[in-house]
């Protein structure tokens, strides 16, 4: 890793960048464009996010606050835990632990650092991690392994049974940094008494582990408060996601990112609720006017991104879609399967969804255990892709519900799990009438395939499959 990268702690840098960005919007348009010049690499993203209006401002502040919590955790006597995006952070908030979600930090770093996460990705390989592993964790992990961020107290994740490369990153970190480690384990099926019992027993073991780390017991009231808030957020999200089904879809392309990032950052916290409410305001207004969320106001096509979308260093994918007047319909990251989710009801799949029951400590823990077992990815790629409740069923049902014109498969080539069955999967989605594009780019490492190549593959696909002239 280059020396100059160690000059400032990287998470501190990201924090400062977001703080600066959050302040900017307070000024006039002119002041904003002056100030944004100081953050050249960040500019594209900022412009897009601020383009959304109030929720954009809230989002930037929220990210700044997320990093602020990380930076000052130790000063405030809190412990930090590195964790993964398919893990609900609510339990950390309930226990007053500060979560550092690697994948989110990777995306934030990609947005603010000129060279993206490349140096940190490579640093992991320097210290012995395989270079063919998933880039979403590696990007950030490298920085923590190099000791360039805040001190980490524990490593907590939840993917075995779902994703080796993900857990491996955490297992590696725990061994490398010699920190306590806990992981939730997911059996291959989702429903049924055996799985439910397993999830709940496992989650109780997690809580015991966390309690031991902080030397305090879980506060029932706090957990109740947070899960009540989660429920509120579930209802807001359900309405937002339901709005997407309308033709035209009243939500701008970027809303998706904000919706799921909100949950990954601050599930159960009032910040997330505010963000969702603010998004909903715009969504409802557009819907009332029968207005598309796309900049041109016209919706030509609907695309369903069944895996991860493309981040790269800025939001170029989102711009491209917006420009091509394509409405974006979620991906594997955006569906949380709560009892309130419109799709759980519309598809008559309440069995797949979790319930929040705030009666007592036991029901609270059962609820959060169930919630966690339904997190994106964790839910639908734990078993054979074509098994009930799993990926193919979810993708087809949602793509039909959303009347998608095509499906895009894009993510990270570091993932064995998803690339293991991509071809039969795409064959099945095609058989069901969805033209399917497989992209070989990496959502987090722009060196794998250049954006120009990716963009031209998308254009080619739309043209050859006669979706667009």
């Amino acid at each position, binding site marked *: 890793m280059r020396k100059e990268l160690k000059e400032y702690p990287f998470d501190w840098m990201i924090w400062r960048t977001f703080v600066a960005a959050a302040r900017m919007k307070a000024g006039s348009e002119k002041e904003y464009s002056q100030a944004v010049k100081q953050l050249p690499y960040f500019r594209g993203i900022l412009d897009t996010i601020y383009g959304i209006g109030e929720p954009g401002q809230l989002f930037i502040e929220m990210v700044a606050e997320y990093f602020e919590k990380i930076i000052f955790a130790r000063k405030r006597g809190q412990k930090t835990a590195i964790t993964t995006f398919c893990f609900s952070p609510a339990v950390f908030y309930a226990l007053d632990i500060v979560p550092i979600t690697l994948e989110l930090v990777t995306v934030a770093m990609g947005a603010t650092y000129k060279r993206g996460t490349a140096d940190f990705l490579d640093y992991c390989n320097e210290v012995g991690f395989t270079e063919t592993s998933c880039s979403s964790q590696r990007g950030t992990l490298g920085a923590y392994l190099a000791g360039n961020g805040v001190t980490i107290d524990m490593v907590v994740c939840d993917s075995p049974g779902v994703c080796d490369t993900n857990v491996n990153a955490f297992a590696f970190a725990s061994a490398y940094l010699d920190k306590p480690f806990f992981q939730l384990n997911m059996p291959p099926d989702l429903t049924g008494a055996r799985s439910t019992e397993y999830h709940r027993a496992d989650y109780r073991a997690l809580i015991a582990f966390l309690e031991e780390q902080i030397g305090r017991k879980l506060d029932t009231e706090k957990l109740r408060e947070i899960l009540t808030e989660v429920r509120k957020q579930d209802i807001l999200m359900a309405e937002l996601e339901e709005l997407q089904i309308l033709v035209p879809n009243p939500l701008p392309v970027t809303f998706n990112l904000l919706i799921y990032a909100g949950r990954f950052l601050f599930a159960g916290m009032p910040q997330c609720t505010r963000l969702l409410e603010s998004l909903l305001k715009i969504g409802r207004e557009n819907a009332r006017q029968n207005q598309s969320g796309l900049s041109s106001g016209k919706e030509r096509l609907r695309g369903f991104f069944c895996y991860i979308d493309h981040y790269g260093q800025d939001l170029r994918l989102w711009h491209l879609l917006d420009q091509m007047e394509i409405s974006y319909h979620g991906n594997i990251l955006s569906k949380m399967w709560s009892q309130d989710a419109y799709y759980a009801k519309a598809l008559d799949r309440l069995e797949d969804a979790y319930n929040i029951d705030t009666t007592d400590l036991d029901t609270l823990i059962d609820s959060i255990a169930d919630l966690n077992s339904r997190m994106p990815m964790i839910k639908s790629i734990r078993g054979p892709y074509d098994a009930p409740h799993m990926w193919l069923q979810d993708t087809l049902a949602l793509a039909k519900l959303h009347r998608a014109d095509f499906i895009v498969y894009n993510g990270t080539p570091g993932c064995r799990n998803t690339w293991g069955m991509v*071809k039969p999967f*795409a*064959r099945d989605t*095609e058989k069901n009438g969805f*033209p399917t594009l*497989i992209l*070989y780019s990496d959502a987090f490492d722009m060196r794998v395939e250049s954006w120009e190549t990716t963009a031209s593959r998308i254009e*080619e696909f739309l*043209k*050859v*499959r*006669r979706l667009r002239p």
Partner: protein
Amino acid sequence: MIVAGCDVGSLTAKAVIMEEGNILAWEILRAGTKPALSAREVMDKTLEKASLSMDQIAWCVGTGYGRKQIPFARSEESEIACHGRGAVWAASTVRTIVDIGGQDAKAIKVDAQGNVIRYLYNDKCASGTGRFLEIMADALGIALDDLGELAGKATNPVTLSNQCVVFAETEIISLVNEGRNVADIIAGLHRALANRAASMVGSIIADEEVAMTGGVAKNSGMFRALETALGVPVRRIDHPQLNGAIGAALFARDAAAARS
């Protein structure tokens, strides 16, 4: 109505001039690094052969890697669409096309009109491409044109383990050193390439008549290897390397017709 198609690929530039479904003239040249220059050169040669000038061409469609840079093309189509179209024009019963060019390989499924139903790129880092064959031919000191014939003489084709072009070259050299028969090595190479193509065809489930296009289709060894790998006969079409340009010219005819 006279129309043209121009296909600037990674290795070769191709042009064809057609009138009412007949080929008037065509040309294939090695492409330089500047697609615009290659396009101009190949088109000029073709025009010369047909004794025509550019303004007599009602419409020209560009395709191939360099399609965006062709100055005289009035519109562009991707090579996938062009190969689909061209193959069905050449042999109306074809429904699956294996196109292996210099830079990539594709499997394309089409309907009776030559419209693309599905397609797939080679996804392997290794790449079963024409470039792979060229590098290997080069390493063995054999002319591209002779590959097919030599492969036919193999008695015991070798197995190659490497997916990677670069490493495969090392492997081949070490096989030569071990004294393996060159024909066997070449046949092994063809088999490796054909198998890669066959796996693409396998993943889009192709069951109807298969044709092979692109420069590599000129290699008779590859033809046989692909037939073996797929276990079905592969349809021969007349100008496989030109097929993309022909498809482009057919699109040009549509465009010109729509105009008038």
